[in-house]
């Protein structure tokens, strides 16, 4: 019988006290029994604190957080099972490891003790070996519970840190998105005789599809839509860089011309493929306000649709490579007159590549048919209705890609005499 105890003793203490000597709280109103048990535990290498009744025991648990609580069953005032219940009811203490100590070990008493919150039982008459074995087992459980609690606390801390970081990033992204949105044109009348409306819905906070309609000199409107490949911050930053290039004052210096073909040819030279193969597609137009002659050129962007008031609706695109695919490409301008009530739509591929729940793309023919169906509505209404139809196709509100739909309408009053002429 002595053999196992000799094997257990040194191992028990070293195992459970690798970092610190385990602390055991002993709660017993009988001083003699308490001193006896405390002595046995101390001789086994544990640090022992003592309490003479249930209330003092609870106070000691809160103050010292022992690794193990050994409670006498029979005590005046709060008995052992009541202390157990108080421990389990306290969120701060409920994971404590508790062993009930009794003079008897009747099955019904054991069942009651376990049901009221004890983890194990120890007979006052237990041998040294049994005391050691039960204390060791309880301390192992206690150590595991502490470890789980530490891991949980670490996870909670990490989660709080991540949440704070996430909120910070989202706030920064939102600021950047607000900045990008502020670059977009104000709906209304960008020039006499021209009205303009748009809808824009980036797939993430920041979009890589941007567009602009602005004055290029006193008698022309510059218009463009660009699509930076990829998504998110990197695509948006690259898109804003190209947008800066396309500012009128910069074009005067960098290109020396407001001809769309010349602009795209220079952009093709200045915006090569990135090391990751990211690139832009770009459509640029220049609308002469007096003559209503539209010059345009495109680098791989096929999102310009001329909705003619009469016959002749068509896509204003031509075979061309995206920017940077071939640094030697020359882009030529095409020319077409716009007539009264003609509408010119600039749009991103995200709208006609909206997938249905079965994966079928909406497609340009359906988009075109939808625009035609809404032809009699106001420009703004037509754009809103077309977006609504795309969302119906998508069966949702969140498009997988950036969606931009901009419309320009040539108003009747200003230049109708020129058209008749």
């Amino acid at each position, binding site marked *: 019988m002595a053999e196992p105890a000799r094997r257990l003793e040194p191992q028990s203490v070293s195992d459970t006290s690798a970092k610190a000597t385990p602390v055991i709280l002993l709660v017993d109103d009988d001083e003699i029994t308490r001193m006896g048990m405390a002595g046995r535990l101390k001789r086994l290498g544990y640090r022992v604190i003592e309490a003479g009744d249930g209330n003092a025991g609870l106070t000691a648990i809160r103050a010292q957080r022992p690794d193990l609580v050994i409670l006498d069953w029979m005590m005046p005032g709060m008995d052992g099972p009541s202390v157990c219940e108080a421990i389990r009811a306290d969120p701060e203490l409920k994971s404590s490891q508790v062993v009930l100590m009794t003079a008897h070990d009747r099955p019904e008493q054991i069942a009651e003790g376990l049901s009221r919150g004890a983890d194990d039982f120890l007979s006052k008459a237990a041998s040294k070996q049994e005391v050691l074995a039960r204390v060791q087992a309880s301390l192992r459980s206690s150590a595991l519970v502490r470890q789980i609690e530490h891991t949980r606390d670490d996870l909670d801390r990490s989660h709080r840190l991540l949440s704070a970081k996430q909120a910070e990033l989202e706030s920064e992204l939102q600021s950047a998105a607000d900045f990008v949105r502020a670059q977009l044109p104000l709906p209304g009348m960008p020039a006499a005789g021209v009205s303009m409306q748009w809808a824009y819905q980036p797939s993430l906070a920041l979009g890589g599809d941007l567009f602009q309609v602005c004055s290029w000199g006193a008698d022309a409107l510059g218009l463009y839509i660009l699509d930076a490949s990829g998504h998110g911050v990197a695509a948006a930053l690259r898109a804003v860089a190209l947008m800066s290039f396309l500012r009128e004052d910069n074009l005067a210096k960098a290109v020396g011309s407001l001809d769309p073909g010349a602009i795209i040819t220079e952009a093709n030279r200045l915006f090569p493929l990135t090391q990751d*193969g990211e690139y832009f597609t770009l459509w640029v137009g220049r609308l002469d306000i007096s003559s209503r002659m539209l010059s345009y050129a495109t680098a791989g962007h096929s999102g310009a649709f001329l909705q003619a008031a009469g016959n002749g609706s068509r896509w204003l695109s031509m075979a061309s*490579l*995206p920017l940077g695919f*071939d640094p030697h490409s020359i882009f030529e301008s095409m020319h077409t007159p716009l007539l009264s009530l003609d509408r010119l739509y600039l749009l991103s591929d995200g709208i006609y590549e909206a997938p249905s729940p079965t994966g079928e793309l909406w497609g340009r023919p359906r988009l075109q048919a939808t625009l035609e169906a809404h032809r009699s509505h106001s420009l703004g209404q037509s754009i809103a209705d077309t977006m609504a139809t795309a969302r119906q196709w998508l069966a949702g509100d969140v498009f997988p890609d950036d969606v931009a739909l901009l419309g320009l309408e040539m108003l009747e009053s200003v230049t109708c005499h020129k058209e008749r002429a």
Partner: protein
Amino acid sequence: MQITERRIGEAVILDLVGELTYANRATFKASVERSKASGVRHLILNMQGVRFLDSSALGTLALLTQSLNVTKGTIGLLNPQSYVKEILTLANLHQLLPVYHSEPEALAACSLRKAG
């Protein structure tokens, strides 16, 4: 995406199966880089088993074409199917990348380019 490499003379045919997209761009590029590092100058991408190609893949192909041009190498696409063919045409990529309809035709083109 599954990529199998077959070396035929100075050319390598990469048999691609699956989708060529942003998500597997790194796998594709690594495979191509391995071929280039082994001294291959003529690369033929067998697109027969490629179901889908996104805009990111177009950029990757354009970048690859540029880098092979620098090293006097060649690249061609073999048998692109339906949707992929449409995307390549829409993006006008055939201006940069020759498309072949059979393996002998692709290999013969490599020999001609080499001779030229």
